[in-house]
């Protein structure tokens, strides 16, 4: 930052007065690294924003004196998102994190324009100029929890509450059934789309509808405590998919997996501090440094099933078990993945078909 433009000067003055006004000590840029994070929604105790917040909290905990994190939440509209990112960059934040796919398009445009900062976007599609992306292989988690569901179902009918039929939800539920069928070939998965990202009352009705048609293990995406609570009220099992709701529903939640974005935040910060940050795309699942980890297991889960889960997890981490390895048929019975083949990352990421045994449809 050698050339002082009018805008930077004004921005600097604004930033300085803001920080001193808030009572923060003024620090020189070379002493601490300023990191900015913008949340689209409010940070609560569960859900997407919670895991985003856990990542920068882990970052703060790791570098208490070297990193200073500025967090903005509830920045909902795209214009504000762009303005705030610009402002953070001008204020001297060297590393900026986008927290949702909805910010990806803005960041793709902004990142090349603001070379004084580096950008990272969670759930972005691909790395761009000055923009890294990271996303989790949710399907590894749903495959494992599917094993638990397949073993515990007595009716051989599982239920899935889906928000909208987007590829990420589709590959998650496909892997859930593939996991279940790996231990119980007779099991089926009924899917209900609620056509809303957030509508707890409708999610509850969806669970009732699934249970009334025989489902005895309920999962979904985005998974919410409402679904698990409704499952418990109906007297069936639930699965914590990208969230652990055992605190609310106790041992009726069979198993859960959670998101962990802290490796992405810490690695990027480290790279920026060392001056060797490069825009990369990272799509990681289970294992060391991964973005997914298995969490609570119900005491109701028999030891044999727990062992089965451990073995499958080890195999996935080692790369011996690929959830989307053939043979896989679609709903119509057509062979989509031949024996000995597996789906590529881009094929998984653009999945719009349902595997054999899923009762439901993808609106065309």
């Amino acid at each position, binding site marked *: 930052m050698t050339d002082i433009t009018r805008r930077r000067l004004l921005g600097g003055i604004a930033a300085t007065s803001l920080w001193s006004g808030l009572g923060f000590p003024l620090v020189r840029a070379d002493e601490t690294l300023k990191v900015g994070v913008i949340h689209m929604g409010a940070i609560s105790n569960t859900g997407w924003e919670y895991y985003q917040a856990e990542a920068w909290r882990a970052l703060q905990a790791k570098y208490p004196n070297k990193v200073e994190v500025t967090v903005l939440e509830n920045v909902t509209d795209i214009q504000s998102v762009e303005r705030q990112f610009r402002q953070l960059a001008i204020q001297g934040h060297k590393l900026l994190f986008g927290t949702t796919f909805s910010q990806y398009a803005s960041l793709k445009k902004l990142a090349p324009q603001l070379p004084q900062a580096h950008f990272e976007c969670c759930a972005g599609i691909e790395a761009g100029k000055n923009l890294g992306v990271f996303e989790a292989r949710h399907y590894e988690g749903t495959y494992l929890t599917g094993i638990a569901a397949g073993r515990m179902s007595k009716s051989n009918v599982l239920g899935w509450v889906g928000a909208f039929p987007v590829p990420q939800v589709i590959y998650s539920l496909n892997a859930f059934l593939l996991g279940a069928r790996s231990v119980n070939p007779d099991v089926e998965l009924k899917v209900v789309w609620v*056509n809303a990202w957030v509508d707890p009352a409708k999610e509850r009705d969806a669970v009732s*509808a699934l249970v009334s048609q025989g489902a005895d293990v309920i999962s979904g995406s985005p998974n919410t405590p409402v679904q698990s609570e409704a499952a418990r009220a109906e007297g069936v099992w639930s699965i914590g998919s990208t969230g652990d709701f055992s605190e609310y529903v106790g041992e009726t939640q069979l198993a859960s997996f959670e998101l962990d974005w802290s490796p992405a935040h810490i690695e990027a910060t480290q790279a920026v501090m060392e001056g060797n940050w490069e825009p990369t795309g990272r799509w990681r699942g289970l294992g060391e440094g991964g973005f997914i980890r298995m969490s609570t297991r119900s005491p109701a889960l028999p030891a044999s099933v727990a062992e089965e889960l451990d073995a499958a997890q080890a195999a996935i981490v080692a790369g011996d078990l690929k959830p989307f390895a053939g043979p896989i048929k679609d709903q119509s019975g057509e062979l989509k993945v031949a024996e000995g083949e597996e789906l590529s990352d881009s094929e998984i990421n653009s999945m719009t078909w349902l595997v054999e045994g899923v009762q439901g449809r993808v609106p065309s």
Partner: protein
Amino acid sequence: MSETLAIVLAAVVAGTPLLYAALGELITERAGILNLGVEGMMVIGAIAGFAAVYYSGNLWLGVLAAGASGGLLALAFGVLAISLRVNHVAAGLALTIFGISLGSYVGKPLVGQSLSLSEVQLSGGLTSLPLIGPLFREVHPLIWLSWLVFAGIWFFLARSRAGLVLRSVGESTASADALGYPVMRIQYLATVFGGVMAGVAGVFISVVYTSIWTEGIVAGRGWIAVALVIFATWRPGRCLVGAYLFGGMTMAELLGQVIGLGVPTELLSATPYLATVIVLVLISRKDSTMRLSVPASLGKSLDIKG
């Protein structure tokens, strides 16, 4: 309980918050006040009622808190729209935005908390009666209350003198004023009543329907209620039918998928809005139907002295 009865009951549960909110909005609009803040008032009612039940364990305290907070918010709207003559649409939209934001802020510590069934359902008393006892167990007291409220509103509007005065205010605020009716007081009462009903609709969702607090719990039902008033052409009877019709649509949408009927679910999701647009088109075709249906002074701020 048979399966069909369970489905019908689920549709009634889904329709009840719509019924409460729409009946309240109907009274407000019949007095010439267009309050688009229903969604916001429902959110505030939902969190206030949920918090009250959560901490006190008493359902009726929750209903009271929800009604009071919804009414208070409506009162604020009344000050803007009736006394200060702010544009109704702008003030209503502001109320919705305010209510949603305040609701998620206040509700933060309660996210994910749930209520146990004993707090939500009543026992003893009526439920132990033979024959009709089970009906009281299955049908929540707040649903019974909604039917009572409906009957009361129908009687009030169609059969009582006070209802006639209220309607006259909505048809021609200036004439009612000239006749010497306390127009502003009537409009305030109607607005606050609408807020109380929206608040009760909110607590029904958070306490009875979901029994759990999360953000976004109302999820646009306030807007469906506003649409429902138009769909019902400002008549309580059609409001009742419409509420259960729209509630039934939700169940049809979800059950249709599970059973595999192959119905286009997005279309069913959009039904309340589509139906409202169709009704609007139908009543707008002729001047006479327009005059018969829409309160003529709806949404107009008039220069009256109260």
